[in-house]
């Protein structure tokens, strides 16, 4: 059974401003939604879980593996956490076409592509309606196409935890419904624990079994 057990404290600083976050969440549901108003700290929490922020205190445990435990001095670097993250603004590699963006996490420098990798990417391209733009660079894509590439790229390497930051916000209603259902089905099938930020009621309903609300960097209801 998949469990996530997370407690995170951190502060963001910039000249004249700071924002602090103190969030704990604990879920045995396969998929949990993280809700909250704009600027509440949702994206920041996801980045902390993924291991992208320095100076995070607390712990991150996924399915029994400890990825972070500041008290015990454990702090796996992002690359060893095996956490897939869809950035809110995608962060696609601008110099790689769609196919290579998807292959990125499957390929290791100086090693041959693992067997099955290409098939996996082909399947994702088809599923996400990206077949026609397989060889396009990100800057030649529409907003919705970019978002789908970001989603597919994060899923491709089969992470042990998937963090989605508004993964469907740029899609038209038809496509959104289709992808949402396929995503739910796929995540269920491969039992990939997921933490999801979304402002869409329907997304949350279809994709998540539990909901955590945060405001001003604090959990307000679990």
């Amino acid at each position: 059974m998949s469990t996530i057990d997370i407690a995170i404290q951190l502060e963001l600083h910039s000249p004249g401003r700071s924002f602090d976050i103190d969030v704990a969440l604990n879920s045995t549901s396969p998929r949990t939604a993280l809700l909250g108003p704009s600027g509440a700290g949702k994206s920041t929490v996801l980045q902390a879980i993924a291991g992208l922020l320095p100076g995070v205190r607390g712990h991150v445990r996924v399915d029994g593996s400890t990825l972070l435990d500041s008290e015990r001095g454990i702090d796996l670097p992002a690359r060893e956490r095996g956490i897939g993250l869809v950035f809110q603004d995608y962060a696609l590699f601008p110099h790689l076409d769609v196919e290579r963006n998807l292959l990125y996490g499957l390929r290791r420098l100086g090693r041959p592509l693992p067997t099955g990798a290409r098939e996996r990417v082909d399947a994702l391209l088809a599923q996400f309606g990206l077949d026609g733009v397989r060889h396009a660079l990100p800057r030649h894509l529409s907003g919705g196409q970019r978002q789908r590439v970001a989603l597919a790229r994060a899923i491709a390497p089969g992470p042990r935890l998937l963090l989605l930051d508004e993964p469907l916000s740029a899609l038209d209603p038809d496509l959104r419904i289709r992808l949402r259902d396929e995503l739910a089905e796929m995540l269920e099938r491969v039992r990939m624990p997921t933490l999801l930020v979304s402002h869409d009621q329907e997304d949350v309903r279809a994709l998540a079994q539990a909901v955590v609300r945060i405001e001003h960097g604090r959990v307000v209801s679990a």
Partner: protein
Amino acid sequence: MLQPLLLTLQVALLATLIAGALGIGAGHWMARHRFAGQGTLDAILVLPMVLPPTVLGYYLIVLIGRNGPIGRWLDAAFGIQLLFTWQGAVLASAVVGFPLAYKAARAAFEEIDPRLLQAARTLGSSEREVFWRIALPLAKRGIGAGLALTLARCIGEFGATLMVAGNLPGRTQTLSVAIYSAVQAGDDPLALTLTVIVSVLCIVLLVLANRLLQSPRS
């Protein structure tokens, strides 16, 4: 005329390779770290640019000459002598060209959106992989501009080269040293011919290098 041309090519390309590799390494490192005194270190790395090349050459031979600390060791350990050899010319050019490669590389690496590097890390990339697969390709254009300058400088350099490698026709005399020599000897027609050759060589090399670097991004 062909021999100095080939020698110039060989020296300039090798020196650019060395200065480029070291400059990219140093530039990447400086872009990824923050520490006290970094500004001063940065300025020190640019110093080879600020010293008149002849003077730089003078200090280089003090270091690597048969009686210099490094030279003595090189000789004892490997039987390598750099003075009056084309390898010495490579060394001199590389030192003179290094700041160009370094500064350009550092600026290019600093312009990269850090989110892209982070995205690569969440996809399982080691820092080595992030460098080769993300940072380097994204910094390509800026680094390319720096290497173009490095190459040009290495072709044009004569002050340090003359000091370290000497002015031995057929052995260490690069085109630039030959031009300098021709000017000193009052042989203006030869100087002009060589200048034209060097200019054309440089233009051809830079245009070729540009073609090679032409990324799908542009």
